[in-house]
């Protein structure tokens, strides 16, 4: 049977991708950002994940304003990196586990999560930057070491889905994966955040204390954390900080009982606080021993 064993929370700042693509990760500005992912890459390799279920948002790249799905599940065979205005990122095309994606789509809708099904889709930095930070440098002719199922969440036009809805969607994704007949190790990524505001006169807002509390409570107090109202993200973590609702999907897909394996937090990367956490289900850790 397929199983979800671990979760990764991770910012997806576009400038991190630019830094990797232009080979400047050892510069003093970027070095502390990437140092915090060294352990993560070793961990990721050791997981031997078959599939990453990757929750992210599009940044008005692939989805324009004609159609704004709240939850869009990638069911296409593959997803190419999109041109965001300065050329596509030079990273591999993302390959799907299409049969599992179809199974999840079917299961979610019967579970009353009325997602949108994407049979063609490109992906922007929201998806490719977390892949790059967790798997390291990969060129256009390389392949990512695992398959990826993208779930694209609207967090651009207010309101984003509530944290509660995202958490419960994570539970429904877990039920869907648990009922799939192939033996697969699935790791869930929740991406975006942490505190940042890109727009208007309050741009540059960072709230380290708030972010730290969010990371602390993600492990031990996820249900109450998922009840955080949108206004708290907007006021305390900046207008774009609301991306953090996507981390609740990841947390909902894990067991109640998880262990924090790794954490990384750094300010700044461009306009943003970089946050990262790795969580493992405790019972899967026992199974390994």
């Amino acid at each position, binding site marked *: 049977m397929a199983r979800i064993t671990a979760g990764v929370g991770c910012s997806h700042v576009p400038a991190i991708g630019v830094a990797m693509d232009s080979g400047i990760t050892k510069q003093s500005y970027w070095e502390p950002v990437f140092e915090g992912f060294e352990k993560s890459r070793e961990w990721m390799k050791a997981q031997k994940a078959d599939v990453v279920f990757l929750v992210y948002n599009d940044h008005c790249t692939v989805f324009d304003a004609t159609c704004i799905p709240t939850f869009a599940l990638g069911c296409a065979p593959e997803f190419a990196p999109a041109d965001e*205005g300065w050329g596509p990122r030079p990273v591999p095309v993302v390959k799907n586990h299409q049969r599992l994606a179809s199974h999840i789509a079917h299961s979610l809708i019967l579970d009353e999560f009325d997602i949108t099904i994407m049979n063609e889709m490109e992906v922007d930095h929201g998806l490719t930057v977390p892949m790059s930070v967790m798997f390291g440098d990969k060129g256009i002719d390389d392949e990512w070491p695992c398959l990826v199922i993208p779930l694209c969440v609207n967090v651009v*036009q*207010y309101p984003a889905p509530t944290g509660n809805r995202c958490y419960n969607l994570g539970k429904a994704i877990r039920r869907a994966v648990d009922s799939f007949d192939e033996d697969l190790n699935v790791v869930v990524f929740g991406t975006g955040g942490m*505190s940042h505001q890109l727009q208007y006169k309050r*741009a540059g807002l960072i709230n380290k204390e708030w972010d730290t509390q969010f990371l602390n409570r993600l492990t031990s107090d996820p249900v109450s954390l998922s009840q955080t109202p949108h206004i708290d993200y907007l006021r305390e973590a900046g207008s774009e900080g609301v991306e953090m609702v996507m981390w609740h999907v990841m947390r909902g897909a894990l067991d109640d009982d998880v262990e924090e394996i790794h954490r990384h937090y750094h300010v700044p990367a461009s306009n943003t606080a970089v946050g990262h956490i790795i969580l493992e289900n405790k019972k899967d850790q026992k199974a390994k021993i």
Partner: protein
Amino acid sequence: MGLNKDYEDIPGTFVFDADRGREGYQLNQFCISLRKAPNREEFGADEGAYLDKYKMTAGQRQAVIDRDWNQLLELGGNIYYTSKLAANDGINFQQLAGLMTGMGNDAYRAMMLAGGRSPEGNRYQHEWDEKGEE
């Protein structure tokens, strides 16, 4: 009962909701068109002719021509869309923030390196009113 827009008292912030999405639709569709290279070329060759294809308001059109980044947001633009116009001009997100905050690139970058803008005194409009900020 109307919707409670409790986010309208956050200073220096436009929360891009469905009302703003409606007002800014043509403007935002124009901006996103610039993510494709042939469109960037066409826009660069004749901005006026290219803008004629989008039924935006005179104010929105002028804000595009003037590259008035804050005005674009005030008139229904969203940052992820307006950033495509900025990218067309060779301006990245951090440089754009330097322009929107009025701080300029160097001061803005220095603020971020020092830990960013603190939430203290920046949560409610009345805090800015008392400080005499716009």
